[in-house]
């Protein structure tokens, strides 16, 4: 699957009705592009990465490129460029990566982490991170699916490098076991911590999460 993800922050002056209208418009526009889409406000408590999330899924990058050439893509993109409602947004597009797929039917929480690398990121550490991120599923039973992929297109406040996409059984698994397992803070997070020798990730990451009913990563799965 090839994904295109928007992470938007609402403008200060956007009231509830404007946000609701935005949500409806984005859902409609996303649906006009592909039936594989997930668009909604993020859940509380919020994580860095804005107030609203939209992901489009395509069978492959060729389908994504075809979609981008259509007027419907411009209709969607324009919604995120409306500064009366959206103060700013991050965009990332990525394809296949390291996929762990354990659940194809039920998932109540979707989350996408995007981050960029330090300019002088140690290649050995990058390789180590690539090899170990998906190990989170072995320590967090509620993390049912995940994919770690290189971002091929990005826009916004940084040149986003990687996406770590997750389907949880429920939000409580993300807020709970995912955060408390020593594998996260004491091992994986070392790539993200400036005081660690393993540090390779810029601190301005985005990691919104939202509700869903079915696991997004199971789309297009065999």
């Amino acid at each position, binding site marked *: 699957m090839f994904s295109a993800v928007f992470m938007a922050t609402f403008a200060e002056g956007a009231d509830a009705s404007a946000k609701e209208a935005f949500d409806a418009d984005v859902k409609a526009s996303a649906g006009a592009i592909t039936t594989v889409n997930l668009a909604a406000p993020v859940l509380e408590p919020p*994580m*860095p990465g804005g107030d609203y999330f939209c992901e489009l899924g395509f069978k492959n990058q060729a389908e994504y490129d075809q979609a981008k050439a259509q007027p419907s893509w411009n209709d969607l993109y324009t919604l995120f460029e409306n500064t009366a409602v959206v103060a700013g947004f991050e965009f990332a597009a990525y394809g296949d990566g390291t996929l762990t797929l354990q659940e194809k039917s039920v998932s109540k929480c979707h989350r996408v982490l995007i981050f960029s690398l330090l300019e002088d990121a140690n290649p050995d550490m990058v390789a180590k991170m690539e090899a170990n991120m998906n190990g989170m599923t072995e320590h967090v039973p509620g993390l049912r699916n995940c994919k770690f992929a290189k971002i091929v297109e990005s826009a916004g406040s940084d040149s986003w490098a990687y996406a770590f996409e997750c389907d949880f059984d429920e939000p409580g698994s993300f807020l709970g076991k995912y955060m408390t397992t020593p594998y996260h*803070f004491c091992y994986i997070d070392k790539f*993200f911590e400036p*005081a660690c020798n393993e540090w390779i990730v810029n601190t301005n990451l985005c990691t919104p999460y939202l509700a869903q009913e079915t696991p997004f990563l199971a789309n297009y799965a065999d």
Partner: protein
Amino acid sequence: MAVGAAAGVASLGAMAGCSQQTASPPEPANGAQATEEDEGGQAEMAQEEKLYVVDTFMPKPGDGKSFLDDYMKTYRPMAEDAGMVLVSSTVAPPMWLDNDSNTVQVVWALDDIAVACWAMSSATRYNPAYVEWCAAVRKRVVSRDRSYFASEEYMEVLNNV
């Protein structure tokens, strides 16, 4: 207004607060009422229920004392403001070397992973001064390592939350 990635990150600490450790300390082996000896043992157990953050540096030859002074002057306040408790600061060999590198080790304690650790990281890594200092240290020292330690008994708790 902070937008996107620059938006408020205190929520990481708040988010971490949504989770709670449910494991309780083990009962005394014989189930007897607490005695002075038991209370000492339980105090020892409580002390072991910490996450220890161990920073080990090898400054360049002759830079040992200057580096440690800078660490204590610049890094220590940021770490303490973020909730870290200084446990020890040691140097090997126990003399400042001019023509070789000392090894400097600083040990901190945090109460738990669920709240204290993530609150610490939220309070530090989004502070430009903290990031700048860490980036400078990367270039200043021959090597550095930060690792997180816990007692074997606490491992049982941490891995079964």
